């Protein structure tokens, strides 16, 4: 589904990532960890076509990203749910409208979509905040809204960038449970985090592989976690 082959990336200075290869198979659960500034967010951006690798090849759903048209990239993004580190909401639209945004831009707002939307907002526990503006949400509410938006299109793949970045432990566990639930429904999940406790908490629930970015390379972390 997502394949990287000898991928390198640089923002213009030195290489941030070098010789990265990875194949995310359907239904797998991955953590991506590494120190702040090691390139986790950059790696995820390569995985949904926001950045183009400076060397090597990234294939999304078997298509080379470099050969995709702009509309092609848009189509891919409708199939990959992303929880962005900074959530990326439209500030002038309500929580509900933000969550429904992917439906709207893909023209799938009609039919049973509205019902699903209500269910989904309930699933992430935001029903009482449905009409609030993003700026009026707490950190945890923002993260949950971002998760709801990431899954509203029922994507096969879910990429989450620090989904528990600025929320307390109880809320982190709640979010983790939602992500594990999605994985049990068959979704491929990749979570970037530097919270090792979160990874440990997940390990008892799900067969997760842990990747680590260190020295510009992607490694499979050992059992020390």
């Amino acid at each position, binding site marked *: 589904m997502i394949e990287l082959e000898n991928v390198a990336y640089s923002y213009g200075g030195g290489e941030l990532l070098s010789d990265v290869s990875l194949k995310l198979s359907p239904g797998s659960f991955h953590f991506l960890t590494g120190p702040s500034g090691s390139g986790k967010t950059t790696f995820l951006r390569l995985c949904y076509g926001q950045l183009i690798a400076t060397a090597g090849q990234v294939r999304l759903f078997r298509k080379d990203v470099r050969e995709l048209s702009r509309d092609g990239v848009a189509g891919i993004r409708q199939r990959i749910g992303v929880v962005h580190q900074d959530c990326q909401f439209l500030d002038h639209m309500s929580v509900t409208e933000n969550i*429904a945004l992917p439906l709207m*831009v893909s023209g799938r*707002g009609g039919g049973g979509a509205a019902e699903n939307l209500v269910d989904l907002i309930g699933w992430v526990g935001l029903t009482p905040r449905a009409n609030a503006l993003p700026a009026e949400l707490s950190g945890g509410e923002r993260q949950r809204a971002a998760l709801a938006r990431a899954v509203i299109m029922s994507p096969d793949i879910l990429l989450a960038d620090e989904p528990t970045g600025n929320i307390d432990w109880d809320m982190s566990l709640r979010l983790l449970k939602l992500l594990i639930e999605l994985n049990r429904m068959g979704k491929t999940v990749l979570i970037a985090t530097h919270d090792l406790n979160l990874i440990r908490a997940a390990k008892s629930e799900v067969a997760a592989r842990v990747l680590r970015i260190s020295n510009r390379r992607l490694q499979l972390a050992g059992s020390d976690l």
Partner: protein
Amino acid sequence: MSALIAPRDKASDRIVPPSGFTVLLTSFTAGAMAFLTVFALALSLATGRLADRWASELAQTSTIRISAPAEQMDAQLRAVERVLQTTPGIASARTLSEEEQRQLLEPWFGPDLPIENLPVPKLVEVIENSEGYDSEGLRQRLAAEAPGAILDDHTRWRKPLVSAADRLRMLGFVAIVLIAASTAAMITLAAQSALAANAQVIGVLRLVGARDSYIAGAFVRRFTLRAFVGAVGGTVLGTLAVALLPDSEVAGNFLTGLGFQGAHWIWPFAIPPLAALVAHLATRNAARRTLRGIA
């Protein structure tokens, strides 16, 4: 809740933040331009009417009127005929019969006018050929040979007026084209600045999988609608202003009917859709270009 999602267009129009200024600018520009267009249109249509009317009255005929004592009449008439035969630019000349003269006078004096007993002038109808004749020269020769003959070429002076009116009508249309072009330019600038100001919104939309055509569409609809609303306002005001112009009888000949008449009242209604079309095309082009530029 379903009302929020179901009518796709309504919700998707909210995607563009209601950022006041550029949109206000668009409405205002469209309004002002529509107002001006009404006047340009009124000018064009009115001068067009004027030109048509004058042109149709511009028969290529003049009249020579001979007033002379009865005993000199025949001699002067023959002199006039002689002069006309040797004047270049004249296709034919014909003396009106008494019967024809009676018909001309009938509206004023009734049917039983004893015309042969009255000192009624003789009338000679002169038809010029396409080159036309030199009226000043003809006048001088007539004065020399037939002192009682007066050349009346009242319709000829309108010739330059007709071409001036035609030119004015053209200018009116050129003005409309220029107004449309400046409207397009202004709306292009407004749309570009709106797109630039909303780079963050565009970024978010792209992240959730919006195609360029979708994003462009949202901006295009916003600007088209605002231009339309503005143009409706400007058109209504402009049309009112034209309608409230003084009547032609009051204002005299020069301004005769600077306004809309009959079927021409349809034309102002074409202005708002036209403004919307211009806004649509301008915004679409601006959006396509700008979106291609934003990575």
